[in-house]
């Protein structure tokens, strides 16, 4: 109400200008808010993904070897697929295409990478799991994807993945696919 009183001394034209300015200022704040919201969505998205497994990301660090009991009552099949992204002159494949295991059982799978170029190349493997809901249940003890991998010209390297599937895996998931995409490393210096 105080604002209206302050207007009374002004001409109608000035009053309108004042009202317009106030509203424009509010709308500009709203605009700024939406812009901040756009950038805030980036961390929000990451948190949501971690909670829901939306994008099939796994934890990028070694799981603590739980004293989990092996659940012999059911089987889960883990399939492996590999991709090499553009700009990385490597061959990359798993030695076995799938593994059938009990939840809780620890297994090791060997992946092979070969640098076909004549330069030292550093790559980084990015994992993704389908269905996303199972992503949190695939626990890696040791993985070549935790760090950058450097290959000398023509070098071939066998890289182990040691992992288990948590017994907490939802019962309706009997198959999961672990996909690795090898990217050229974006932080070669580190």
């Amino acid at each position: 109400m105080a604002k209206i009183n302050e207007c009374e001394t002004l001409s109608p034209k000035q009053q309108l200008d004042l009202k317009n300015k106030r509203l424009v200022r509010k709308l500009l704040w709203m605009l700024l808010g939406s812009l901040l919201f756009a950038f805030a969505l980036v961390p929000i998205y990451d948190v949501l993904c971690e909670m829901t497994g939306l994008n099939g990301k796994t934890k990028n660090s070694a799981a603590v070897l739980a004293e989990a009991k092996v659940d012999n009552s059911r089987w889960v099949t883990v399939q492996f697929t590999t991709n090499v992204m553009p700009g990385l002159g490597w061959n990359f494949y798993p030695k076995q295409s799938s593994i059938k295991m009990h939840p809780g059982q620890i297994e090791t799978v060997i992946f092979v990478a070969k640098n076909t170029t004549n330069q030292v190349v550093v790559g980084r493997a990015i994992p993704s799991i389908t269905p996303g809901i199972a992503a949190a249940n695939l626990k890696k003890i040791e993985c070549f994807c935790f760090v950058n991998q450097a290959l000398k010209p023509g070098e071939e390297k066998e890289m182990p993945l040691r992992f288990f599937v948590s017994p907490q895996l939802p019962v309706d998931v009997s198959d999961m696919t672990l996909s690795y995409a090898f990217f050229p490393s974006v932080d070669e210096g580190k």
Partner: protein
Amino acid sequence: MSTTTVAHHDDHAEHPTGIMRWLTTTNHKDIGTMYLTFSLIMFFVGGAMILGIRAELFQPGLQLINPEFFNQLIGVHALIMIFAALMPAATGFANWMIPLQIGAPDMALPRLNNWGFWLLPPSAILLTLPFTLAMFGIGDGALATGWTFYPPLSVQGGIGVDFAIFAVHLLGVSSVLGSINIIVTLFNMRAPGMTLMKMPLFAWGWLITAFLLVATIPVLAGAVTMLLTDRHFGTHFFDAAGGGDPVMFQHLFWFFGHPEVYILLLPVWGFIPQILETFSRKPMYGYKAQVYSFWAIGALSVVVWAHHFFTSGMPVPALLYFMYSTMAISLPLAVMFFCWIKTMWKGSMSFETPMLFTVGWIILFGIGGLTGLVLADVAADAQYHNSYFVVAHFHYTLFAGGIMGIMAGVYFWLPKMTGHMYNEKLGKVHFWLTAISFNLTFIPQFFLGLAGMPRRIPDYALQFAEFNMISSVAAFVLGLSQLLFVYNIVTCIKGGKKATDQVWEGAQGLEWTLPSPPPYHSFTEQPTVK
């Protein structure tokens, strides 16, 4: 709604002549005219691009254009049609009609208004310049990712992507400025006695649109800015190798992209009932219900975005949520369809060109809406996603629901804006040619999509040949018949039968109380609305 007399101020207002008039104008009618003219020109630019596509798709195999150029054409066609044809057309009507409809002397922020318009031509040039640059061997042409800019393709793309990003920034600034202006005008400049719930429906549609634009355009601007920094400044928002996620771009883009659909349609939903009541000669049915439906759709539009990429991978509960919330949008829309039909019910209808376009619009937009429900179904979408079914669906909503609606508005208000009646016979021919060739263009595309033809591919399997041939021929008829539209507009501006003040027998509202054409400065003394 009754009004006091119109102030006959000075018909021969002082303003610069020639090009300086248009560069420096702050008059809402001049700016509205510029928006509408710009929109019409860009409608033909975007149309010419898609005729290139349809010519290539006339036969299987690659005949006329190479795949890279094909990809550039589809993306730029979409950006031009959405941002440079449909949105400016709606803004043009807003500038022309909102002050007249609410009894205001002008828009609230006239200089901002001028700036908002003059950002558009540079952004149109930015969008199309890479085509020309490529001819001189600079760069590899325009944006080739489709209008959605999905990474990683857009991170790897050439300079066309950068041009498109800056064009989107400028277009965004322009439409946000326009929106702020409209909101302020509607809140502060209404004639005494005109409460919000007495505002014409067109003003209501624009109010919601303007708020949606202010809320979502910054998200698009943010997303393409992240893309820009990913491309040039070493960030990894969308780069999986650096810990980012390309799917996040889809979330950001469609958080803007879905409301954008309603941004394009709400102004049309606003004036369609006004045309219906005019030519049915009875007041519109369910004004309040339609206003509340606008609100409902505006609110729902920002929470349904992920139905555009069901196949990108989502947990089942998220799929279900986005499916049901998307389908919920059909409820307020059904209310509006009911109101439109009830407005015509037992009215004494006549079918001048604006009414023809409006009735055709209701039917065709209905088809667009119903096929949208099919796509909203997660199980069905797995098959139809990225097929020509999607292309046909959104052209029913955006060409029929958007552009044909705008055309209805043009024929409805053209006599008011120019002071002359357009050629009625030519208008009707234009309607029938448009409606028939539009259906012949896109009905085959529904069948193509159901049969599995993917969109955005320059070549296709032999079994799709006949439907593509029909679609291409009809697309050329559709494109060429729009020349009638231009001819009709131009002759109407130049002369013709004098239009009366009310123009149409059943026309209601403040804009019809002014002379046709309205004086350069109108409502310098505000009318009172009872």
